[in-house]
């Protein structure tokens, strides 16, 4: 397999313009003759489906939730970045580009990231025009706040519900196209396989989650916008339904998987409270604008936080990273929290927590102002923990939040399978080894609103696609495989529930492939995961039948894929003998415990190619060439 990133030639700032001119167009009257499948209705999928529908393509759009409005983008809290420089504080496209490249620890493609920064300004325009109620100043213009990894205020927000408001804007645009007849929406429908004909993606096999009906969906191109795989860890901030199935099954059909080991562990989440825990809840990074992170100076200090005097507190982020302080990037803040907890200075049950304290902010700007900025987050915290954060500092701990890895795509967002495009968190492209806060929403919408409408046209205008329908043997065979797999899962009738396997898998990954990874731990996982997978296929209990609404069967299929994918994740983490961004290998650190990159040997994208069941996947390397930025050691000190 050849990895051709298809990066346009010419100076960085002109690449996208030039490429847009060079791409082929589909005549407006011909667009309705092309059909496109979009899987997933988050910011990337929803914006893509709506925009392609507006252009006149026949779009079929799928989501497993009961409505496209429920995709997990809805839960993003803090904001969306854009290089508008409305605050006159020195922002520019170049600065957003540079911050994102540096934030990603120099493991992302320059050309993609520059394009992202260029497009960021149009996204805000589009969303405002849709009626997204962003926060505003008294003069009526848009407000901004700062976010981790940046020293300018470029984050646009709608209280603590920015993802919700952006997604509703995009969902409304999508429903407008549903009404116009250009988009057909299939809610409660899960993609279970990708179908290739003559080497190109020509459709998917789906299961209707209400009736159980397995069906083929045929199209001229397929777009996956199915989000990240954070739930491989079982406990994460992802929604319970978020899964790797669509991208993993595309991988098994030949799409290379890029950098699976780049996972983001978010520093500010509510700590685990018990064994029954089903998910972890994020507290927006924006809280670090006004909240100060600290632990007691001495280990084993059991006093309530209010009784610990100022001199006996360690504001460790401000101490270690004076120039960025509490606003240092996520990977650094998470690792620092782990470090102080490992030293025995963690707070709360089990010592797995640090304080996020608003005492100073309340003193400085008053409780009312704090409530205006973060009210809904404080309310959520109180509801979950039964503690009042206006009076006692929040307790937070890192949790799995986002996955920078994903299916490998070229500059056109096309995977190694012609016709299969991948958008948003599901692709690997823009965040390198660590994503900065407020950049996920930006990327999802850039991909869906402003990139795929152009690049898909180029593909359709140039590809030679024979007419096919669902009676084609490739569709028949894929349907049969999907049916057979469900029958197999339902026929095992073993002793253990699906969730018990998922929890066990999650523990293995959190333990050995979480915030700190070692070769020994990863090797142990590579032995234990196949054994767990084998037990799953012999001993899982999936009640009910395939011809009904069966949530156990849905979960079983997803966990079966996680059990395979986890091995790929650990394999990638083991091969990457360096520390970068969210990937921290204990063997590779500076004397003061910071990540130690190895640009000489690992300045590449690792793209894994499936070789068949129980065979080691092949590693393909896409070298990363930095022509415009200097590879430096990331410092936030």
């Amino acid at each position, binding site marked *: 397999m050849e990895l051709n990133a298809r990066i346009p030639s010419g100076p960085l700032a002109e690449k996208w313009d030039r490429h847009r001119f060079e791409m082929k167009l589909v005549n407006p009257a011909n667009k309705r003759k092309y059909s496109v499948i979009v899987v997933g209705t988050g910011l990337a999928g929803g914006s893509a489906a709506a925009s392609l529908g507006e252009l006149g393509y026949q779009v079929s759009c799928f989501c497993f939730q009961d409505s496209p409005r429920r995709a997990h983008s809805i839960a993003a809290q803090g904001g969306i970045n854009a290089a508008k420089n409305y605050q006159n504080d020195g922002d520019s496209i170049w600065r957003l580009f540079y911050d994102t490249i540096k934030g990603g620890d120099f493991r992302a493609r320059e050309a993609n990231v520059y394009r992202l920064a260029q497009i960021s300004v149009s996204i805000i325009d589009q969303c405002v025009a849709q009626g997204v109620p962003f926060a505003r100043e008294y003069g009526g213009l848009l407000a901004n706040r700062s976010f981790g990894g940046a020293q300018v205020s470029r984050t646009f927000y709608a209280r603590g519900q920015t993802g919700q408001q952006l997604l509703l804007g995009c969902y409304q645009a999508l*429903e407008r196209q549903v009404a116009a007849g250009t988009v057909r929406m299939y809610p409660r429908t899960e993609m279970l396989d990708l179908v290739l004909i003559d080497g190109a993606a020509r459709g998917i096999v789906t299961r209707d989650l209400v009736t159980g009906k397995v069906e083929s969906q045929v199209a001229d191109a397929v777009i996956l916008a199915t989000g990240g795989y954070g739930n491989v860890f079982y406990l994460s901030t992802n929604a319970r339904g978020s899964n790797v199935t669509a991208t993993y099954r595309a991988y098994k059909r030949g799409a290379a998987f890029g950098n699976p080991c780049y996972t983001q562990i978010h520093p500010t989440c509510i700590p685990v409270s018990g064994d029954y825990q089903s998910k972890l809840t994020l507290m927006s990074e924006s809280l670090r604008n006004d909240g100060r992170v600290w632990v007691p100076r001495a280990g084993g200090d059991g006093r309530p936080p209010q009784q610990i005097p100022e001199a006996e507190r360690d504001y460790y982020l401000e101490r270690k990273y004076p120039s960025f302080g509490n606003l240092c990037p996520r990977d650094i803040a998470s690792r620092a929290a782990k470090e102080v907890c490992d030293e025995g200075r963690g707070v709360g049950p089990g010592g797995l927590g640090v304080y996020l304290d608003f005492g100073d902010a309340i003193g400085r700007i008053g409780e009312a102002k704090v409530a205006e900025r973060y009210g809904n987050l404080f309310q*959520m915290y109180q509801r979950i923990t039964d503690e009042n954060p206006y009076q006692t500092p929040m307790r937070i701990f890192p949790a799995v939040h986002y996955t920078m890895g994903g299916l490998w795509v070229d500059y056109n967002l096309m995977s190694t399978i012609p016709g299969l495009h991948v958008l948003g968190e599901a692709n690997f492209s823009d965040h390198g080894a660590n994503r900065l806060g407020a950049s996920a929403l930006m990327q999802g919408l850039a991909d869906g609103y402003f990139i795929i409408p152009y690049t898909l046209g180029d593909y359709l205008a140039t590809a030679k696609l024979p007419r096919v329908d669902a009676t084609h043997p490739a569709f028949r065979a894929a349907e049969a495989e999907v049916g057979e797999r469900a029958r197999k899962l339902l026929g095992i009738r073993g002793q253990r529930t699906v969730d018990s396997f998922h929890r066990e898998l999650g523990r293995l990954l959190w333990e050995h492939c979480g915030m700190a990874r070692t070769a020994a731990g990863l090797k142990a996982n590579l032995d234990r995961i196949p054994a767990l997978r084998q037990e799953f296929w012999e001993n899982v209990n999936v009640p009910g039948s395939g011809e009904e609404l069966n949530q156990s069967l849905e979960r079983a299929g997803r966990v079966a894929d996680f059990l395979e994918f986890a091995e790929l994740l650990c394999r990638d983490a083991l091969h990457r003998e360096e520390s970068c961004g969210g990937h921290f290998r204990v063997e590779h650190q500076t004397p003061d415990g910071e990540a130690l990159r190895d640009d000489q040997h690992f300045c590449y994208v690792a793209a894994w190619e499936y070789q068949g069941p129980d065979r080691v996947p092949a590693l393909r390397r896409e070298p990363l060439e930095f022509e415009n930025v200097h590879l430096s050691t990331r410092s936030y000190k």
Partner: protein
Amino acid sequence: MNLTLYVWRQASAASAGRLSRYEAADLSPDMSFLELLDVVNERLTRQGEAPIAFDHDCREGICGSCGLMINGVAHGPLKATATCQLHLRSFRDGATIYIEPWRARAFPVLRDLVVDRTAFDRIIAAGGFVGVSTGSAPDANSLPVPKTDADLAMDAAQCIGCGACVAACPNASAMLFTAAKVGHLALLPQGQPERMRRALGMVQQMDAEGFGGCTWHGECMEACPKEISIDWIARLYRDYIRASATRPERVAVEVAL
């Protein structure tokens, strides 16, 4: 803590349902209500029984997937709280809890506690948007919006589309849901060009879906996890009446289109 649960079980849309009794023991008060159902389901699965089907996804009160009638109250006893954000500490040890799906003609039960809420999507498709295609937007700061209007619009825009307002309403009206979207967009300059046709189109769709009318009970506002006020319904009436009275022909033609 221990709880006795009576849960609505219904195999499919076509079959009859009934309440089944389950004992749930050794629970933690810090457990969420959905985690309680997880625990019961794990046990049912081990016993070879069908687990209870219920909708849920983000479990942090924003996606709007979950929604249960708990002792006859939409989303249970805690104000301004979706089911997933409700914890067992809101119940007393040894309590008996009745758990049912949303009940409304426009929300048919699909299985157990899962209902079909696609009617909400169709109400949005009938006008709950600003008709601006990708790429045609002016600069974001070209139209100033008074902060008070933007904040008020955000109050309405927070609706998570869970359907609690419908479930709580004696008429199973979707008026609060519809009004929140109409009101959100009516407050912003971007929403003005389609303001009248939006109000008419969405209300007509709401009626066509089989939701009841509003008779001002206010139950919707009490049940709403985002505390969306019934005032929005008054604003919707204003727009609806204005649209019907001032430009009926033009609006009728536009809606038909």
